[in-house]
């Protein structure tokens, strides 16, 4: 436990990870997460751990694979395009049942996108991201305080279920400063005990330990066993926060930074005589579907607020299962939600309006598409579309 101090999000996260017992960090520079490796470079050695600036994100995640195989609390951080590169290692970590922490301080995408905060990696994070049937546990902080305290939770969940855990933050959360306190005492990793599956110096006191990703003929059994673990996690580890969910006209669903704008919207709507509630998933996988299903039915409509173009809303629709209309208020590619815009969208949910609501079919109304290729003979229309 600590006194409240003013910290930058990325630095709170890095300090929180060291306090949580992280003793191996490998990373590669990318904005807007650079303060994490910089903090690790300055402090990890003093904590008795190792920091490596890797030659690439691919190398960094594979270094984490090696360090995690020894049972060391290991982590990496990056931002969206870098997380795409890490997917090779993440699927191998999942296959080898290795616990570790991966931090994604999201920026705009696809591709190199932009360096502003965004939430466009929801699908990638919650659907595994790499090849094969697997999941990673995804924690979504919405404050600097949660950024600082989630690494401990992340390591504990990762180790409990032997799988990678991802903290899905965004550029603004990583860059902003807030007053925060750590809600736990520093962890001494030497006191945590050894895993029976880890590789180590063994001095003949046990048999050979082996960490591997190629399963061959055992693959079906392996994937099936892991699916049981996933079922258990979905049953027991879903986390969420609720505000005014019991008595609201429109239930807002948002995670991370978007949920902060929803708090402003709740206050503004109250002044306008509209009752808004907020359902904030803290674990994006497992998604708190059951809880949302029940709470959604107390509202007239559900409005998903996300800084992406219809990603979170898919899980919301799956959870609500058609019992209540689900709408989308989207701020993709670095757009930032604010309270007034959310209130406008919430009003549309109630009065059948369209302002502030995104519908992909309506969005394409009247849109024509004409792609041309320049040939030696002149401009030739290749494909045309439209409605």
């Amino acid at each position, binding site marked *: 436990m600590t006194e409240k101090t003013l910290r930058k999000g990325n630095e709170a996260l890095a300090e929180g990870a060291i306090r949580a017992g992280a003793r191996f960090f490998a990373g590669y520079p990318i904005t807007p997460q650079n303060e994490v490796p910089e903090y690790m470079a300055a402090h990890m050695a003093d904590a008795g751990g190792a920091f*490596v600036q890797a*030659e690439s994100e*691919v*190398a960094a995640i594979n270094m984490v694979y090696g360090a995690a195989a020894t049972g060391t609390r290991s982590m990496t951080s990056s931002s969206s395009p870098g997380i795409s590169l890490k997917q090779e290692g993440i699927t191998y970590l999942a296959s080898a049942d290795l616990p570790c922490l991966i931090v994604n301080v999201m920026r705009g995408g696809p591709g190199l996108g932009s360096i502003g905060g965004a939430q466009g990696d929801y699908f990638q994070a919650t659907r595994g991201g790499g090849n094969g049937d697997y999941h990673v546990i995804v924690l979504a902080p919405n404050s600097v305080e949660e950024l600082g305290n989630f690494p401990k939770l992340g390591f504990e969940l990762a180790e409990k279920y032997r799988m990678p855990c991802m903290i899905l933050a965004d550029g603004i959360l990583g860059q902003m400063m807030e007053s925060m306190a750590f809600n736990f005492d520093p962890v001494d990793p030497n006191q945590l005990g050894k895993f029976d599956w880890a590789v180590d110096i063994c001095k003949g006191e046990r048999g*050979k330990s*082996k960490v591997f990703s190629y399963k061959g003929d055992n693959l079906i059994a392996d994937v099936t066993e892991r699916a049981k673990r996933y079922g258990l996690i979905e049953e027991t580890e879903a986390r969420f926060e609720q505000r005014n969910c019991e008595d609201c006209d429109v239930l807002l669903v948002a995670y991370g930074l978007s949920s902060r704008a929803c708090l402003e919207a709740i206050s503004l709507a109250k002044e306008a005589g509209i009752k808004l509630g907020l359902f904030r998933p803290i674990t994006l996988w497992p998604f708190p579907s059951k809880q949302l299903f029940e709470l959604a039915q107390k509202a007239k409509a559900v409005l998903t607020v996300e800084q992406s173009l219809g990603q979170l809303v898919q899980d919301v629709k799956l959870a609500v299962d058609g019992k209540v209309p689900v709408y989308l208020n989207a701020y993709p590619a670095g757009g930032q939600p604010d309270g007034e815009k959310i209130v406008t969208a919430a009003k549309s949910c109630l009065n059948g309006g369209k302002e502030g609501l995104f519908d992909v079919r309506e969005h394409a109304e009247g849109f024509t598409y004409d792609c041309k290729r320049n040939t030696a003979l002149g401009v030739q229309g290749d494909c045309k579309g439209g409605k």
Partner: protein
Amino acid sequence: MEILAKKPNCLTDIPMHYCPGCGHGIVHRLMGETFDELKIADRVIGIAPVGCAVFADEYFACDSVQGAHGRGPAIATGVKRSKPGAIVFSYQGDGDLASIGMAEIVHAAVRSENITVIFINNAIYGMTGGQMAPTTLVGQVATTAPKGRDPKLQGWPINMCEMLSQITGAKFLARVAVDCPQNVMKAKQAIKKAFENQVNGVGFSMVEVLSQCPTNWHASVEQALEFVRTKMMVQYPLGIFKDEGAK
């Protein structure tokens, strides 16, 4: 009765899957002997690659990690930095090390990671069925170079020991072969040196082993050994390219 020769304690009893005439088994044995002789068996953690040696983690009686294609030196870095007292090796083929894993091997050398790399160069992708490797010789036929490697199309073979010798952090670089008893003995000396260096904290050490692949060269064992001697050794001369751990 006096025992004159036996299987090293550091090898398991699991039958190896390597093709007849392949060099992998010989190299495994030399490594096993080295671990026994240096008395480091309980400290060794091996990294197995993707490729023909993907099951190498089965054959060494030490803790093992098998990871992604080409990433052995990165995985070894994670293991070694977390367990500095361990003796960590990365065992890699030519596609693994000199193609997809080029960045990882170069930067492990740049950082002078105190690890040992055993690099099997047989000038072909073995496990996937004989595709062109970065080390495939000019004119050598491969399934993805059906008319033979043409430098105009596919460039020239890459000599890893010579290339890495430019890197300050690379402390021991040797190229050996396992085509005849004399060369096997020299290979053993180099492998032993590469592990002794790690015990002594010298830094990055790599042994490149020219190995025969009768299966994918579509050659008899005898022809394959001849190919190593008359073709591979011309492109890839044997020798010690760097030895900064000598004392």
